[in-house]
């Protein structure tokens, strides 16, 4: 099974080379492994994730929007490009089906295009677009499932569960190579897919699309307190699911990197 990155021109290095480069070397800033955190440094890195942002320069965006509304409609291609993935993943977090998510994402983008003149400059374009994507996802879900969706959500929220993480004693024993493995990313993808709907949606907006708590709350139409609770539970559920996986796949010998067949 090969990495699916070929032909996409997005990743210049394959897994092996990335892993080799990290072996025995210090942290490499630009790569994921370089950003992964060792236990000892953790305290100093506090809050760093919260700083991450994917926003394009807002002035350029505002300028683009006014030009499009004024008639340069082809510029909408440029406006939407940075958000293509965000729209897709938002719809996917609701409909949970790739083909449906793609159709829904297209529909959401077309809707955004048609209603761009109703966009208010004081709002953030990314949040506005996310709301359109959520509405489209929900519309599709209702069509597929019937109208029972809301009551299902209420029930889910009240379910009490064990939201404590899996204690881990040997995280530092896990080589960076393991964290770079394709299997781990697949496991994470599956774990996110298996999260209950309300948790997956919050997790997707907050940690995948990097909206902040308030934006996530606004986009989903719930209050920020609910977002925090759901986010915490989602993260803990994922930690629990991935910890055993990390323990079992970690290669025994130091510096030994086994590539997937």
């Amino acid at each position, binding site marked *: 099974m090969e990495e699916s990155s070929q032909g996409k021109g997005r990743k210049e290095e394959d897994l092996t080379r990335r892993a080799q480069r990290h072996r025995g070397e210090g942290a490499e800033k630009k790569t994921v492994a370089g950003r*992964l955190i060792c*236990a000892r440094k*953790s*305290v100093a890195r506090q809050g760093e994730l*919260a700083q991450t942002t994917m926003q394009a320069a807002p002035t350029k965006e505002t300028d683009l929007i006014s030009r499009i509304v004024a008639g340069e*409609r082809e510029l909408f291609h440029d406006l939407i490009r940075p958000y293509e993935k965000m729209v897709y993943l938002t719809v996917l977090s609701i409909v949970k089906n790739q083909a449906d998510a793609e159709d829904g994402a*297209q529909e959401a983008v077309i809707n955004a295009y048609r209603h761009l003149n109703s966009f208010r400059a004081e709002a953030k374009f990314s949040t506005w677009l996310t709301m359109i994507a959520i509405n489209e996802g929900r519309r599709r879900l209702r069509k597929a499932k019937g109208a029972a969706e809301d009551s299902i959500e209420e029930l889910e929220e009240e379910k009490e569960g064990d939201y404590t993480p899996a204690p881990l004693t040997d995280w530092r024993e896990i080589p960076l190579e393991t964290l770079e493995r394709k299997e781990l990313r697949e496991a994470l993808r599956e774990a996110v897919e298996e999260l209950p709907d309300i948790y997956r949606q919050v997790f997707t907006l907050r940690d995948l699309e990097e909206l902040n708590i308030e934006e996530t709350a606004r986009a989903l139409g719930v209050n920020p307190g609910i977002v925090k609770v759901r*986010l915490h539970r989602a*993260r803990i559920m994922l930690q629990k699911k991935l910890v055993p996986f990390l323990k079992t796949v970690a290669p025994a010998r130091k510096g030994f990197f086994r590539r997937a067949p």
Partner: protein
Amino acid sequence: MKLECKHVWEYISEYIDGRVDPQVKEDIERHLEHCEICSATLDSTRNILILTADDRTFELPMGYSERLHERLKKEIESAEPDLKKK
């Protein structure tokens, strides 16, 4: 205040987001200094978030972008032909 592990776990998510009160933050950090289990648990949770943000974890279907812009192009051309600047 001296925190127990289970209390630290309750704050993991907000701690990662930098949203805990300064006093709680201090208590958590004091606990982390001597508790390997909580340090490892916190790191694993945080690393999952970093992996989540890795572009290779959640990918778009092949050809998604091309199909999207093709559809958009049709929409732009059909909806308001008069507004196109030539």
